[in-house]
């Protein structure tokens, strides 16, 4: 042990376990508290009363607004997803293949929704949605246009990180030389190769749209979160159960997708990690680093290929 002390940079095992346990407890306790709260019976003691009540047909009226909000949010998620796949994705590929010099512009544009708080965007959205309400529809689904902007930093980076790992230019030239048209290249050649990025972008879209409150509340649209907060006034148990469920479901989805997209093969581990939903959100959260160093992915690839090293790696 003593001989290794000065090269080990991670904390000693006992300290590592202590830190991780404390952090895990900090993160898990509020969730457990939600579970505990949801199991309280009206007459005291614990039971499934409120869980059963939530899906009881008799309470249909009580929860109608909440379930309508959930439905609205799911519809919104689908519409935003369509926007991402039909508008954003082709644009990213087109810029990547034909207008590489616009890449930086796109990088900067897509971090704006992080730099500009949603509450500020609302001030600007308000007159636009007043117009939409008067001329198009006051329904909740129209929000998908605003939401498309909110998810932009995350979806853009999820797709771009994956695209950077694929030699899309050569792929498309190969396909074009075989007589494929642009649409075929996009759908049959590029998309399958960045499916992990697209999957992560989709997952992030669903998570963000289902969790969105700021814009919908201030534009008076009925989304899941708005309905939850309203339900909380009359039935805090129902609101807590639904919150708990959605947190757990999204967590499980992230674990599942992370597990599915991780490729255990050596050497590709780095690339697989780069395309995980967490890494994509990290990349989105550190946007300027990406914009400042466009050559970073290339450097990373170089490191991986330049180290056919044995020794501790070969363990």
């Amino acid at each position, binding site marked *: *042990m*003593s*001989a*290794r*002390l*000065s*090269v080990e940079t991670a904390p000693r095992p006992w300290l590592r376990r202590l830190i991780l346990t404390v952090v895990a407890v900090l993160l898990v306790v509020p969730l457990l508290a939600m579970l505990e709260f949801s199991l309280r019976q009206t007459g005291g003691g614990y039971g499934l009363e409120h869980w059963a009540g939530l899906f009881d047909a008799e309470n249909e009226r009580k929860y109608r607004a909440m379930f309508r909000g959930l439905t609205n949010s799911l519809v919104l998620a689908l519409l935003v997803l369509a926007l991402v796949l039909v508008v954003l994705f082709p644009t990213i590929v087109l810029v990547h293949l034909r207008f590489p010099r616009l890449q930086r512009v796109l990088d900067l544009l897509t971090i704006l929704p992080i730099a500009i708080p949603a509450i500020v965007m609302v001030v600007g959205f308000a007159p636009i949605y007043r117009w939409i309400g008067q001329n198009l529809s006051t329904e909740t689904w129209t929000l998908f246009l605003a939401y498309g902007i909110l998810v932009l930093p995350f979806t853009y980076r999820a797709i771009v990180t994956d695209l950077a790992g694929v030699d899309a230019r050569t792929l498309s030239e190969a396909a074009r030389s075989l007589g494929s048209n642009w649409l075929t290249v996009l759908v049959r050649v590029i998309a399958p190769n960045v499916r992990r990025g697209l999957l992560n972008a989709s997952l992030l879209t669903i998570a963000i749209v289902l969790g969105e409150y700021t814009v919908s509340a201030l534009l008076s649209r009925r989304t899941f979160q708005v309905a939850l907060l309203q339900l909380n006034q009359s039935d805090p148990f129902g609101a807590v159960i639904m919150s708990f469920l959605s947190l757990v479901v999204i967590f499980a989805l992230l674990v599942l997708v992370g597990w599915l997209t991780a490729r255990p093969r050596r050497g590709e581990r780095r690339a697989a990690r780069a395309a995980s939903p967490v890494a994509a959100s990290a990349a989105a959260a550190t946007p300027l680093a990406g914009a400042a160093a466009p050559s970073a992915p290339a450097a990373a690839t170089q*490191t991986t290929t*330049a*180290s*056919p*090293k*044995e*020794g*501790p790696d*070969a*363990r």
Partner: protein
Amino acid sequence: MPVESPTQPSPATSGTGGVSVSLQEVVKTYGSNTVLKGVTLELAPGELVCLLGPSGCGKTTALRCLAGLEEVSGGAVLIGGEDVSSVPVNKRDIGMVFQAYSLFPHLTVAKNVAFGLERRKVAKTERGTRVAEALAVVGLEGFEERYPHELSGGQQQRVALARALVTRPKALLLDEPLSALDAKVRVRLREQIRAIVTELGITTVFVTHDQEEALAISDRVAVMNGGRIEQLGTPEELYRSPATPFVADFVGLSNRMPGVVHEEGVLVHGVMLPVGSTDDAVPGEEVLAFVRPENVRLGRSDDARPGLAGSVVSSGFLGSLRRTVVRLDSDGLELAVQHAAEDVFEAGEPVRVTLAPEPTALQKV
């Protein structure tokens, strides 16, 4: 075996002048995986030994055991005759150069080089002169205030070398220091490393997977395979009389030709070749003998000399020489032949080949 150099060693980096370094029956295991299976290696003071082998052979692990970056599971590591097996890496007084990216990115070249001196509490004024001298040794005067990201890969490795040498360590350990560089820079830098090591007389272990590199700069080469040293010898010994088929194969491309073992060597196509190591060869046994392309002579079919008849399959120009592949008429065996570039052979041309009676290694059939 330090080579005498006419130039005076620089006062900045000469010091200990080289001590003996050795690994004795070193074993290294990770769980159930044994990476080093008893490696013994003795370096004379001032000697440069290369650990050569394919990836996964244990050469880097052996070096890291020497450095103290890995604890040995068995055996001993000696530096200057002293058992340092339980001495931590930062007390072993060695200099190490890594594959790449080992310079501290936030420090200038001068501060990188001074890092080890600061740890040793060397006075500031002396630090300055020693850093300058170390940078002069690697030919980077005037780069003091640059940052690592402003340097080329070759320059970075030279700074790393200066940083490793400036503390006047007992031994210099290099872990594939050139493998991340371009071919041209690689050749230039390896010659520079050889010259510096010779000049300072520092005992040096150099890990590489490139056989040409190992043969070009070493006093001796240890060829490793599967956690063991297969052969330890001078580059000439290794090349001329490989002890095992693995060495023969790894140290330069070889032809494999069927032969029969005799008391005095192995008979291959009527030619008796001496055998480097005769350990388990039993007379009368049928084996494969390794024959290097440059030990095969190629002549025109109308040549009066005796030889094996064959025809040219292909021929390629390699710069100073030419490589031709010949198919023997007798058994259809294909032989690679290396010969002077002036002799041009056309594909399909009938030729005669003869084998030079050089030592060979055997492989059981």
